[in-house]
C-alpha cells in the first residue's frame, strides 16, 4: 500500500477518530446505579430481620421504594427501608420459607428514585442467606413473582450497565476485548497473504504476512497483560489457570513465536517465504481452535460465551455498550493495521538494503 494512497489515509484517520470516540465516550459516560455489596446478609426466617445494602452512585436525594428478596418463585418485599447518604440502605424484612423449602440464598433487588432517574432498579445475585428456623409458618412479607417481573422492565436510566462483580471495570470491554479481535483479524490477514505468496511467488506478500503476525503478537501480549490485571479483581487471580481460553491463547502465542524463530533460521529468502507461509497457514486453524472452540467445549471457562460465566452474554451486551463496542473493535483493528503497514514499509526498506549489500 502506498503511503499517500486514499485507503492508507482512511485507515489512519478513521482509526484515530474511532479510538478517540471510544476513549472519550467510554471514560466519561456514567455507570448506572448498582449494588456493590451486601453486609449483615445472614438472616433467620420467621422473624423481622435487618440487612444493609451498599449502593453505588444512586444520586442525590435517593429514596428507596422497594427492596425485594428473590429465590426462584419465592419473592419477599421489605417492611422498612432507611437510606443514609453514606451509601448504605438498611432494610427490615420478614422471610418465611415454609415447610417445603430449605435454607436458601436470595437475590436482592432495589427499586428507588433520585435526581439521576425517577425510576431505577438494581440487582445483586446470591447476596442474602436465609437460615431456616425451627417453626417456620408465620405471616411474612411474601409477594407474587409477577409483581417483581413487571417492575424490572421499567428502567429509564442512561449509562453503562452496572453488573455485580464487574462494576466500573465493564468499560474494559472497549479496551481489552478489541485487542483479541484485532489479533484474530490480523492473523487472518496474514493467512490470506501467505496463500497469496504461495500462488504468486512474490516476496512482498510474505513480508505482509510477517508484519501482520508480528503486530498480532504485540496485540496478544497487550491482551494478556490487560486481561491479567482485569482478572485480578474480578476473578481474584492474575492467571486463572483452569480457564481453557487463557491456556489456549498462551499455547497459540508460543506457536507464533516459533514462526518468528523459524524465519530467522532460514537464510534463502524464497525458501524462508515458502516454508513460513505454509507454517502460517497451518497454525491458524489450530490457533482458532485453541482460543474459540476448545473453551466452548469446556464446561467451566470464565470468559463469556459458554458455561456459567460472570460477564456478558447476548442479553448482557446492552444498547449503550453496543454504541461503543462496535466502533471500538473497528477502531482498534484499523489502528493495528496501520502499525502493521508501518512495519511492512520498514521491512521492505530493509530488504532493499540487504539486496543492495549482496550485489556489491
Amino acid at each position, binding site marked *: 500500500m502506498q503511503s499517500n494512497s486514499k485507503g492508507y489515509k482512511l485507515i489512519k484517520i478513521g482509526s484515530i477518530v474511532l479510538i478517540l470516540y471510544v*476513549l472519550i465516550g467510554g*471514560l466519561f459516560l456514567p*455507570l448506572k446505579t448498582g449494588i*456493590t455489596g451486601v453486609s449483615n446478609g445472614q438472616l433467620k426466617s420467621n422473624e423481622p430481620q435487618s440487612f444493609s445494602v451498599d449502593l*453505588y452512585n444512586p444520586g442525590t436525594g435517593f429514596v428507596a421504594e422497594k427492596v425485594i428478596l428473590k429465590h426462584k418463585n419465592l419473592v419477599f418485599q421489605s417492611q422498612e427501608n432507611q437510606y443514609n447518604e453514606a451509601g448504605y440502605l438498611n432494610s427490615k424484612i420478614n422471610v418465611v420459607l415454609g415447610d417445603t423449602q430449605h435454607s436458601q440464598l436470595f437475590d436482592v433487588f432495589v427499586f428507588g428514585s433520585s435526581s439521576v432517574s425517577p425510576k431505577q432498579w438494581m440487582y445483586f445475585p446470591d447476596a442474602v442467606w436465609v437460615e431456616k428456623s425451627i417453626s417456620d409458618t408465620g405471616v411474612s412479607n411474601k409477594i407474587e413473582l409477577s409483581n417483581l417481573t413487571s417492575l424490572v422492565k421499567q428502567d429509564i436510566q442512561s449509562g453503562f450497565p452496572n453488573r455485580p462483580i*464487574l*462494576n*466500573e*471495570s465493564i*468499560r*474494559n470491554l472497549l*479496551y*481489552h476485548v478489541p*485487542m483479541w479481535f484485532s489479533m484474530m483479524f490480523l492473523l487472518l490477514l496474514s493467512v490470506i497473504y501467505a496463500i497469496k505468496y504461495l500462488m504468486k511467488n512474490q516476496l512482498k506478500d510474505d513480508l505482509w504476512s510477517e508484519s501482520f503476525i508480528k503486530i498480532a*503478537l*504485540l496485540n*496478544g*501480549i*497487550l491482551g*494478556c*497483560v*490487560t486481561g*491479567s*490485571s*482485569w482478572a*485480578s*479483581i*474480578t476473578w*481474584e*487471580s*492474575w*492467571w486463572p*489457570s483452569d480457564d481453557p481460553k487463557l491456556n489456549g491463547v*498462551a499455547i497459540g*502465542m*508460543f506457536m507464533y*513465536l516459533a514462526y*518468528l*524463530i523459524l524465519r*530467522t533460521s532460514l537464510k534463502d529468502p524464497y525458501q524462508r517465504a515458502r516454508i513460513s507461509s505454509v507454517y502460517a497457514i497451518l497454525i491458524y486453524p489450530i490457533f482458532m481452535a485453541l482460543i474459540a472452540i476448545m473453551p466452548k467445549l469446556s464446561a467451566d471457562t470464565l470468559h463469556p460465551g459458554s458455561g456459567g460465566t460472570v460477564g456478558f452474554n447476548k442479553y448482557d451486551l446492552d444498547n449503550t455498550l453496543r454504541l461503543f463496542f462496535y466502533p471500538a473493535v473497528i477502531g482498534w483493528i484499523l489502528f493495528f493495521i496501520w*502499525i502493521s503497514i*508501518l*512495519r511492512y514499509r*520498514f521491512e521492505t*526498506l*530493509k530488504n532493499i*538494503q540487504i539486496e*543492495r549489500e549482496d550485489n556489491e
Partner: protein
Amino acid sequence: MNKLKAIIFTIGLSSMNFLIAGETAVSGTNAVSDAATNMLRGNAKFNVVATVLVLIFIGIVLYLIRLDRKMTKLEKQINQK
C-alpha cells in the same frame, strides 16, 4: 541478534503470567499481589480501567520506540553508501 533479543523479551513477558500464577498458587495470598489488587479495586473498580489503558499505551509506545531504533540503524546503513 536484535531479533533474538526481541524473541527473548516476548517469551519473558508472556511467561511472566505463568510465574505470577505459580506464585499465587503456591503461597495462597501474598502481600505484594494483595496490595496490587487493592489498588486496582479502588473507585468501584475504575482503577483497573485506567491501568488497562496505561498498559496498552505503554505497550504501543515501547513497540514504536523499538521500531524507531531499528529505522535509525537502517538509515545509518543507507547513508553510509
